[in-house]
Structure formats: C-alpha cells, structure tokens
C-alpha cells in the first residue's frame, strides 16, 4: 500500500511535469477516520497529498464525464470498467485520459469496521494485507480484512485494471468466479417475501439521488426523474414513485452497470440497491453473455441484439 502511494505520487508528478495531463484525480486522506477522499492535483508540488489505502472506494471515473481537460486518473479494476463503458458511450475520449491503474485487494467498508469494533473512537487503522488493526489511542483491535470488504468487492470479478497506461503495484489474482448465488437465493424466496423485503428497503429511500450522482455511468444532462413533460416519476417519497425511480435507474444501467457498488456506498439510508443491481447484472450475463466494462470492443447489450436471444419469458397462450 505504501508502495502504491509512492508510485502514484511519482507517476502523478511525472505526468504533470511532462505536461501529459492537466490534472490527476486520486485520493487523499479523509477528514474522518476510515475515510479517503477524492483529490484533484494540478501542481507537481501537491503530489504529496496523494495516498492509496483500503478506503479509496469512490469510483473516480465519474469525474471524467465531459471533462474538457487531459486527465490522469487513479483507477481500480471497477473504475477502469467504468472508463471502458464511458469510452464506448463517447463520454470520455481514450486519448484524453491517462489511467494510473492500481490492482485492488478490495476496499474496506467503514460500517463493517465500526460494526465489528463497536463504539470505540477509531483514530488509526493499519492494513496488514490480511488484517485490519484499529486503534483508539489506547488499545489495538484487529479483524480479518476479508470480513470488512464492501459487498461489491466480495463478488468482484475484476480487481485488476482492464485498461491502464501505467500500472502501479503488483497484479492481483482474480479470485472470484461470480455465480450470482446471492441472486438465486433471493429469487428462491416467495414473491410475497421478495415484495415485503424490497418494499421495506424502498421505504427508507429519501430520494436524495446520491445513488444516481455517485454512479460513474449516470451522466444524462437531464435525468428522467427531473423530467416533467411527461412526468415519468413523481419527485416525492410516494412508495410507487420511489420504486419506479429505482427500477428505471436499474433499467437505465442494464448492460452498463460495472458493479462498482458506488450507488450502494453513497446511500445515506443503507437501502439495499444491490439486490436490484445484482439481478440485472445476472440477467445481462446469463441472457446476453455480457459483463459490462470487461471488453472494450463489445457493443453494449442494449445497443444490439441476437435473433436467437432467449425468449422463454414470452407468453405462449
């Protein structure tokens, strides 16, 4: 990790000094324990602010959208998947981005850490690779790093950058073959139970749009929720509107969602958006053989079709 930090700083300084980019987007220390925060470096002298640790979970790709500058970006596997899709969708020009790829060991969810360590005021966290050791100034507590990962990181199939211009750190082994067992588990419940669960989750949504705005692939200049002619979905917290919003959000990301989990992490209310996203990802993978962001040359599944696509869902009266 410290090695990555040094290399990121080094590459950033070089890219800025050589004039290859106007700006490098990376992470710096957050204002709170267990947090890192996006930072925007334009001066080679500022590269000392850059860090790399287990909390660099934001998907920085969303800062690339319609940027008119040459940008260097620190990117994990999922971030590069988003970049791949953004390039395909012409929101980012490949030649305008220099990707500082960082193989990722999975990012740590602060909520998991706090859950585990209870009420202590965490002041320091050390990432040993296998363990996380937290200190509150008086004592040290440790937990398995694996147990603290974000949910999206636990099912991640692409920890290494898909594309990069500079690779920082050692490539990691891709370890998960994602069989979408979580999706199957949920689907095995009765429709009534599924509905109860989803309705319960939706009831907490406050329509703050953080899921949308954190998503690297939500970039419409006018989102459907803001549309008034016709008004597709009401703006309030009516349960039907909330659900419609989330369903449409998922449908708009169908075949494009890079499974980075940014929406889930952004949600202030802990709404389980993952259950919807994962179903969509599973269907897209199963029916159209597509895992978005992994193949720069492949058309998006909803930009094409195959005459032999599955249609067993169709009604045969």
């Amino acid at each position, binding site marked *: 990790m410290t090695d990555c930090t040094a290399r990121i700083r080094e590459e950033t300084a070089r890219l800025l000094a050589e004039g290859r980019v106007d700006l490098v987007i990376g992470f710096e220390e957050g204002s709170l324990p267990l947090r890192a925060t996006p930072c925007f470096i334009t001066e080679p002298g500022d590269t000392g602010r850059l860090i790399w640790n287990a909390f660099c979970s934001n998907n920085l790709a969303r800062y690339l959208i319609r940027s008119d500058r040459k940008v260097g970006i620190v990117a994990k596997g999922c971030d590069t998947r988003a970049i791949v899709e953004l390039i395909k*969708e*012409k*929101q980012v020009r490949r030649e305008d981005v220099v990707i500082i790829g960082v193989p990722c060991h999975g990012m740590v969810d602060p909520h998991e850490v706090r859950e585990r360590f209870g009420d202590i005021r965490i002041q320091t966290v050390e990432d040993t690779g296998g363990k996380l050791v937290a200190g509150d100034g008086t004592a040290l507590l440790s937990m398995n790093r694996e147990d603290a990962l974000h949910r999206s990181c636990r099912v991640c199939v692409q920890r290494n950058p898909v594309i990069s211009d500079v690779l920082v750190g050692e490539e990691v082994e891709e370890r998960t073959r994602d069989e979408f067992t979580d999706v199957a588990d949920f689907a095995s419940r009765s429709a009534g139970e599924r509905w109860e669960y989803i309705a319960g989750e939706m009831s907490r949504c406050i329509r703050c749009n953080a899921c949308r705005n954190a998503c690297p692939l939500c*970039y*419409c*200049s*006018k989102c*459907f929720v803001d*549309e008034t*002619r*016709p008004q*597709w979905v009401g703006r309030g917290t009516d349960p039907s509107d909330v659900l419609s919003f989330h369903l449409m959000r998922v449908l*708009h990301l169908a075949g494009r969602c890079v499974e980075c989990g940014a929406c889930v992490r952004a949600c202030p209310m802990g709404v389980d958006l993952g259950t919807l996203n994962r179903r969509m990802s599973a269907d897209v993978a199963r029916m159209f053989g597509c895992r978005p962001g992994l193949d720069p040359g492949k*058309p*998006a599944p*909803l*930009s*094409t079709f195959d005459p032999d696509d599955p249609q067993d869902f169709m009604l045969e009266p």
Partner: protein
Amino acid sequence: MTPSGPTGAVLVLGGGISGIQAALDLADSGFRVYLVERRSAIGGVMAGLDKTFPTNDCSMCILSPKLVECGRHLNIEVLTNSELTALEGVPGAFTATIEQQPRFVSTEKCTGCGECAKVCPVKLPDSFNMGLSDRKAIYRLYEQAYPHSYMIDSAVCRRCGLCARKCSAGAIDLDMQPRTLSIPVGAVIACPGFEPFDASLIANYGYGTFPNVITSIEFERILSASGPSRGRLLRPSDGKEPHRIAWIQCVGSRDIHRVDNNYCSSVCCTYAIKEAVVAREHSGGNLETTIFHIDIRTHGKGFERYYERAKNEQGVRFVRSEISRIYQDGSGSLILRFPENGRISEEVYDLVVLSVGMVQDRANREMAERLGLHLDSHGFCETRTLSPVETSVPGIFAAGAFSGPKDIPEAVMGASAAAAEASAMLSHSRHTLTQRKSYPPEKPLLGGRPRIGVFICHCGINIASVVDIASVRDYAAGLPNVVLSEEALFTCSQDSQRMIRERVAEHRLNRVVVAACTPRTHEPLFQETLREAGLNKHLFEMANIRDQCAWVHQGEPEKATQKAKDLIRMSVARAKLIEPLPQAFLDVNRTALVIGGGVAGMVCASSLADQGFGVHLVESAAELGGNARRIHSTNDGADVDAFVSRLVESVSGNPSITIHTGTHISDVSGFVGNFRTMVENAEGIVEEISHGVAIIASGGEASKPDGYLYGVDPRVLTLQELEDEIARGNPDVTSSRNAVLVQCVGSRDEDRPYCSRTCCSKAMKLALALIEANPLVNVYVLYRDIRTYGFDEQFYLEARERGVRFLQYDPGNRPTVEIVEQDGRKRLRVVTTDLVLGREFSIDADLLGLATATVPSAGAAELAGLFKVPLNEDGFFMEAHIKLRPVDFPTEGVFVCGLAHSPKTIGESIVQAKAAASRAALVLCRDSIEAGGTVSVIDGPKCSGCGVCAALCPFKAIEMDESERKAVVNEALCKGCGLCASSCRCGAADVKGFTDGEICAMICSSVARGL
C-alpha cells in the same frame, strides 16, 4: 403511338406478388397502372401461404401492407374478377380489352362487416382453403383481402335477397352487370402465376381417394392461423392431430415417366423443410417428420443453413428414396413403401403431404394465346437467359412463375425487372397519365386551445347493436376540450365525410377523433378528409370501437359500452397533445452511382440510362466485364462472349453513362437523394460524384480450392478455368479420356455453409461440352446433391442420357486424389465411395475439375461500411427483406444486385440488375424526397451523445455529430419506429406523432377508474 409519345400506362396481368410488385414500382415511378386479376381479390398464392422460408416470416404479415398500398394507390386501378380478352395495337400504343364480371357488392359501400354472409343460406366448400372448410355464396376471398369488400358467387347464389336486406350500408346490388373496358396502355406485364400440379394425376399416391393424402398447398392452409382449423394441426379424415407426417418430393416435377415434366419446380425442397419445421413447432415438437426426396435442392440464399438446421437441430428426417406407391390402412393412416439400403422398407404415417410442383393451366395458355406469346412445351412463357423478362412479343414482358418456376424473391425481382423494361420503353411519357391530388392550405393552429370534435360511428348495426352509442356520445361530449360529439350511421360514407368537413369549419375544430373501426384501414381516409378541411392530417386520432370492442364483446353490451367510453377518453387525451407535423421536401439528385462493372453493374447502368437517368459506373479493374468474361456460353447455348462485348460497347457509348474504371470508392457521405461519393484512382486522384442513389454490384469471385492437388498438378482445374480451356479449345483438355468433376469444393462445408447454386448446372454444361469435343471421353461427376433447378434439369437428364456417370459422395468421406506412377506415367488417381451403390470407385483421371465456391469480392466489407449496409454471415450483402425487398437495403437509396448479393447465374444477375434499376428509378423519378411526418426528433441539450440510438436504428437514420457529441436524425431516412426514443436514457429522442407525452396521456387515462 400518339404524336406526343407512347401511352404512359401499363397493363399488369395477374394480381399475385409479381403483379403487385410490378404495379407498385410502375405507379411509383410515374405510370398509370391497371392491375387485372381473375379472382375477386389480389394477393395470389402468397396470400394462402402460412410462413415463408428461410426465415419463417408470416406470409400474410409481410404481404398485407403491399395489398393496402396497392389498393390505396391513386395511380393503380385494381380490376378484379377481370380477364383480358384482347390486345391490339403496337408497343407503346396498345389497347387492351378487359371483361369484368359483376361482384354484386359495391366496393365503395361495403364495410366488410360480414353480416351478409351470416344470413346467406348457401354453403359450399371454400376453394381458398382447398375445400377444407366452407364458405357462403356471398363471401370474401380471405380476411385481409383487397378489395376488402364481399362478393357474390353468382354460380351458386339463389338470389334470395337476404343479404341485400341485411346490409345496412346498402352495398349489395343483385342486378350488377358485367362490363367491358377498353384501356389504352403502352406496355404489358404478364404475370398470371402458376397452378399447383394436380396430384390426382399420379394415381399411385391415392390423392383424392385417401383423405389424409394432401398437397403441400392444402397443408399451408392447415398450418395457417387463418386457415380452416385456425392453425391447429389436424388431419382431414378424422380431425385428429397427426403424430407422423411424410412429405413426398417431386410430385409433378422432375418426372418424365408418370407425367412429362422434365423440369424442377425449384421451391418444393425448401417449402417442404419449412412445412416440416413449422408443423413441429405447432405440435410442440411431438411430431415425427420425414421428407422423402431425390436430391435436396436448397440452393437459395440462406436455404442450406435452413436445411442443415432442420436436419441437425429441429429433428426433421430426410430419406433419399422415391416412393412408388401409397396404401391406406383401416384407420385412414398411410403405408409408404420405398427402397432403402437395397431392401424395401415400409412405414406408416398419419398424414402424407405431396410436394406438388408448379404447372401452367389452360387459363394462362389461353391468355398467352390472346397476347400472341410463345410458350414452351410445358406452357411456360418463353424467355431467354440473357433477356429474361422479354417475351416473344415486343412491349410485353413476363414476370413471376409464368416464365418458369420461381420462389418469391425471384418473382419479386422479375416483376421489378419487367417494370424497369416497361419504364425504359415508356420513359418519355412518365407522369403523363398519373394523377396528383391538391388540398387547401393548412390552417395554422396559432397555439390555440385544443378544440376536439368526436364522431362516433354506428357502422350500421355493427357497433350500435352492442355499444350504447347515445350514452357514449354524451360521455364524450363531457370530456375536457371536446367541443362537439356527434354520431353517424357510417362515418366513412361520402356524406359523413362532408359532414365532418362542415363541422370542422362550423366549430373551428382543430383536432378530430373518430370512434369507429380500425385505423389500419380507415385512418388514411379520415386523414384525407382532414386535409380537405384544411387541417394537418396528423391532427387526427381514431378509437377502434368496432373490431376491438363491439365485435369481440357481443354478449356484454355494458362492458363494451364502458370500453368504448374508455377508448374514446384515451383518444381524446392523446388528441389534446397532438401537433401538426410538417412535411419537408428535399431535392433529389437524379443520378445513380453503380458500383461494379460486371454484367450486373452494366445491365443496371444501361437500364437506368434507358429510363432517362444519368449514371456513374465505377469499376476497380481496368476494364468492364467482370466474371462474365469467363462464362463463354449459357446452358441454352447463348453466346455470352458476344453478349458481354455488346454490353460493354453499349455502356461505353452511352452518353448518359460515365465510366470510372480502375478506381475505387474512398468515402461516402449523404443520404438518399443526395449522396456524395469520393472515387479514387490508382494515382490517388480523387473525384467527387454527387448522386441520388447507389447500386452495389461489386460481384463475387471463385474461391481458390484447398487440396485435390490444385496448383500442384496442371491437370487439376477449377470449373471456371476448365470453361476457359474448353472455350479456347485446349487439346490437353478436349482430348482427355477420363474427366472427373468434383462438386461442392468449398461450398456446403463448415466454413461456407451455403450452396454456390450455379456449379451443378455448370458441371452439366462442361460435361456435355467435353463429350461434344470428344465423344469417347468418360465423364464422372462426384456430387452430394444435384441441384439443376428449374429448366436446367433437362441438362442433367441429357448428361445422364449421354453417359455421364454420377457418383454421390458423403461430405464426411470426400473423394481423394493422388498422383500414382504407373507405366512411367503420372496418373491422377481419384478414389471415391458412391453412396447409392455403396462401393468404392477408383478413377485414373487425366482431367480433374473442381466446382469451387462463389465468394463475395474482397472489397465487400469496406463498401458495406461506407454505405452503412449489412453483410450476412457469409459476407454477401444482406437485403432489407429476403422475400419482398430482395434488392433494397434498410438504408434508403442503396440497392444491391448480382453476385454481391449471393451466388447466381448470369441470367439471374441480369434480372436482379434490372430489378435494382427499377427500384432505384423510384427514387430518381421523384421531384423530391419527403421527410418529416412521423419521424424521430432529438432534443439537442438533453442528448449526451452516447450513440445507443445510432447503433440501434434499423435504417441508419441517426448519425452522431462527433464534435458536438449529439445524435442527429436524418428525417429522409427515419421511418418513425421509435426504437431510438424507447432506448434513449436521457429522454432526448422522441417520435413525432407517437410522443412519450401522447402515449403517457393514453396510459394515464386508460385506467382512470370512475372517470
């Protein structure tokens, strides 16, 4: 001929798909057309088919828009129940005499409601359903028929008058008389079609005796959703579902013993496969299907894949055996006896389908006689390979199966080709006899509030007997923005149309809602009325309270009334939001660009030039001619070398044609009517050509064979090389003693799972030529299936008669060739196992000919990219629709012909080239391209430029402006399907006339309970 030029009208004889296509092509390119049909409706054989191969498209679905188009065309007069009785005059100035039998029902007044048939007491077998169901004496040929009105079969009508009393539209006139018309026309297209072979002529099959032996045409009706059993697969004898069905091929075709038919009907193999596959779908897979055949002839585009799939994936069984006789058992099932592996096998089937071929009947022969046309011995119209639509009489052109067995796309192409010939002949009189309608100027809406008029139709008693019209009228009157709600007995009648025009003026209506029948048939009529009333035709909305309400809820008047109110409320909700849609007109550059200087390209170029348009002909080679320079004669003996020389000469000398040899296309921009193409020569000099249409005739080439010692031993040649050598009289070739021709070298294999179509006939030609040159030669043809379709079958027969040995090999065990040293000579030893005899043959050949595949030309992919048109899996250009648009692309203004489209003979290339010229002329003869109307629109600020719309648009009507990162709609290309709108996440794309707002308004009002 009149002093001002030929008569600008064409007589089309036969209302099948060929006649319809020819009529539409001609009427759209500025000629008046009289379409004469013997039956009471147009549609022909295609109207009776269930699905079409090789895509299993619904036949009626693809045909019916053409019927409607034909029926509504201002410049097509459809004359049904009519027959040509005489043709006099000279080419350019004929006079046709047409005898029209009375229909007894006014096509103008009849609404097609069918109440008359309900009361008609006369019942008889329905010939459209091959007698498998009944109809009345007053009837309609089939549901979607055009004309849509009923007619009385005077042969069986008892003149009881019940129908006339029942008809509330007053459409029935039992005193209607025959009439004779005398019509001046400049040219005639004869396409009266064919008749299915009368299977009862082959007594051994028991057709007509055994109820469960039926013809393939009857089986089509059984499969059809609109057929006698409504698409349920049932056998005639007991109405039970069959579990085993056999097809017997070549019934009436390829048969010189039982009947004297020495030709192949070309379509039966593929339609039998289709019927087997579709039958299996109908039965949920619980059906055994066996096709008994001689050869399987799936030589058409995409057919080989279709065959392989049927065989390997869809469980259709193929047995190569001729059935000599059919027996019936006590249950009505049928026993088939056939030789198999040297023994006689016996199998029992529940149903046997006879794959009947195409023949010509007496009516067609008589018609031909009246026209003075030469027919061949089977009654088909005589044409020549190199002038395939010209008949023996100048000014009369033949199309469709009248001139030989054809499948639908061949018929369509032939029809377009015939249209091109007629158009060339009459080009000076284009637009002299056509009509154009004029309308008052449109009233501007000026942002006023919607003032909606609702007109509710009784449709006689069709709607009024179920729906409470008064209550619906009062309800509609109370809906927001409705200023008038009025009822009418028939809203479609002349006086109601006048009433609507008057109400528009009196009440200053700016939107009209008609609640009546279906917009599919009547929307154009009412839109016409709106235009006459000075309103934009899009300010109209229709609520279908007949076909989709009164007729289907006859026993529930209250619910039907409620539904009618709901439907009207939905229509009013939409009407509030509709806006007038302006039409834009773009100029057309009346020049064509033809790419490829082979026979297809040259024929196309000259046809277009003859039709009065400028042409640029681009050829990458240094000289014109293409592959045809290596075909020296046709099977029927025509001199191709001379033909090509004449063609090159005439094209080169034609002042309307500019030739660009030794050049290629480097860039294309623009769209239909206004293309700009860069043509670059070897020195890199670029010339810009402006043109309105492009025809891709970039050709194909012979594949280079792998193996068989090709390139190793000089005695091994491709058939193309062999043809050159024979033509040159090379003694090494013409003096060979043992010549072996191997078929399917590079075709019908894993890499190229398609048939190259021409090689079997070519092998016959070369075998016969070798024998001609040296009667002592032994010729062996090693084949998989002999595919000498159509009239080329006679050359197969001739080759067999003249001693050519045919050995059938298994693709899994291909013939081998090795050089064997014997007696100090290197012999070419060919070893093959014949499947028929089941033994190995070893032939020491001194000549080995390889039937290589036809492959697309190298530049096809690049051209496809430049013109944004698709290629199929094999790299050939893919037409817009394999059946009905065989030379068009989804992208308007671009056409294809020749080998670029698929392997084909020179004669077929000529037909297709002329067809492409005909289709291209439709664009070039227009004053302007209409754009606008129901088209997509992009809201620039909302568009994020992601490109999903451009990727999905089937018509390539959306382009990305890369610098602005916005999508741009080309209204000239857009068809308004709305795929872009439904796929646009940003809400930037919408469809005028079907906007998101309008649809949402309908959704919102559709379920508003208690409103």
